[in-house]
């Protein structure tokens, strides 16, 4: 199963590198979103905690602009039936999930680097805490957006509905991650951020389990 989902991932990677649709869209979206924030801030001095919140605004909307590609592209090219024939639903979901996790990590790393270069107030005092929350937050973001992308691909309206459906599902993760980013900016110790980290990790585990259980129903539709 794992080798099959790996080859599925390679197939996605190859077709992505050939067209570079998602990568280009994400890269441009990051630039657009960050420059909108920079223009609206202007010469104003913004507080460090505000930059932590805005950081997640950029991440959320960038994710919403590109991550639905994983399943929507299969529907558009009409290759869904072929995939259903050659692979089990679990394999398909694993392959798409690996692809989206890589995409989210690449995207968020770029956002984090650009963000810390462009905003002087965005200073991480507890880097280890930020890194841990960043990793688990990204995994959760990838899982939820992959399963919602599967729903969206089967539904009629593809573009507009995606952020609408994803936001309530991602809300607990975003709330906890914003809180963790604020902790990292304030330099709060690992020990006192344990609860929020536990929330993010259990969110990942629960969403992963629920997604694998429910994906069968979506995929066979």
């Amino acid at each position, binding site marked *: 199963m794992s080798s099959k989902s790996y080859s599925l991932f390679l197939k996605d990677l190859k077709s992505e590198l050939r067209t570079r649709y998602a990568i280009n869209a994400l890269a441009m979206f990051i630039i657009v979103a960050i420059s909108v924030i920079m223009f609206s801030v202007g010469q104003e001095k913004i507080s460090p905690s505000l930059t932590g919140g805005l950081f997640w605004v950029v991440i959320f909307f960038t994710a919403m602009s590109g991550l639905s590609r994983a399943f929507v592209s299969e529907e558009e090219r009409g290759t869904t039936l072929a995939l259903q024939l050659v692979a089990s639903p679990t394999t398909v979901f694993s392959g798409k999930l690996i692809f989206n996790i890589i995409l989210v990590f690449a995207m968020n790393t770029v956002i984090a680097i650009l963000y810390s270069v462009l905003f002087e107030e965005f200073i991480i005092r507890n880097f280890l805490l930020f890194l841990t929350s960043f990793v688990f937050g990204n995994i959760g973001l990838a899982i939820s957006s992959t399963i919602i992308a599967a729903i969206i691909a089967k539904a009629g309206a593809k573009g507009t509905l995606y952020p*609408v459906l994803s936001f309530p599902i991602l809300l607990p993760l975003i709330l906890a991650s914003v809180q963790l980013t604020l902790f990292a900016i304030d330099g709060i110790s690992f020990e006192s951020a344990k609860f929020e980290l536990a929330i993010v990790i259990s969110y990942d585990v629960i969403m992963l389990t629920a997604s694998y259980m429910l994906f069968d129903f979506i995929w066979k*539709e």
Partner: protein
Amino acid sequence: MVWKIFLFLLLAFVSVAGISFPIVENPTKWYEFPLIPGLEENAKIIFFHVPTAWLTVIAFLMSTLYSFKYLRKKNLDDDLKSYASAQLGMIFCILATITGSVWAKFAWGSFWNWDPRETSIFALLLIYGAWFALRSSIESEEKRATLSAVYSMIAFVTVPFFIFIMPRIMTGLHPGSADDTNAGPVVNFKMNGNMLLIFFLSLIGFTILYFWMWRVGYKSILLKDKLDKKFIRG
């Protein structure tokens, strides 16, 4: 038929009693409510605000339950029941939000405070708003039923997070919150016997009303489907 008259009398009594019974400092007569410090006359909205919030939870729970049932049995009737219940849940959710925010204006000073429960009901509004949007975007009945059932299951597993994460991020204003000084269930603080009686009568009356409305809603969707088929296919 008898129970409908009974329900009418019950709800009429609750509405009249809840609004018109006087609030006095030392209740002596059977129809007098006690004065609760900090709430005063505002306390009366409890007979309408709490039942609507309660029904929001019941209706959405029923909707999720029938979605789950649909995924197991693939019976389209279950999907219609789930849809009818979610419609009612949305109505009660909006009512609870409005009555709550009116109460918040007079008790806490502003219409919206991002208290944990306010945030939770906002998340519920978002989830079911998205759910209805998803349903309206799909033509085929089976596909619509499956996809919306899956979405409501995914939304359902996020509910525990709202319960645990909210109180950590926001300060609670509702009674029974983590940092509430007079902690404990809402009901047994400072309500006297007749107030409690009317409160529970109101809860029971509204719950029966919900189950009745649910049945009527479900039947009307069935009839509408039948009519559509009759006129379109001849």
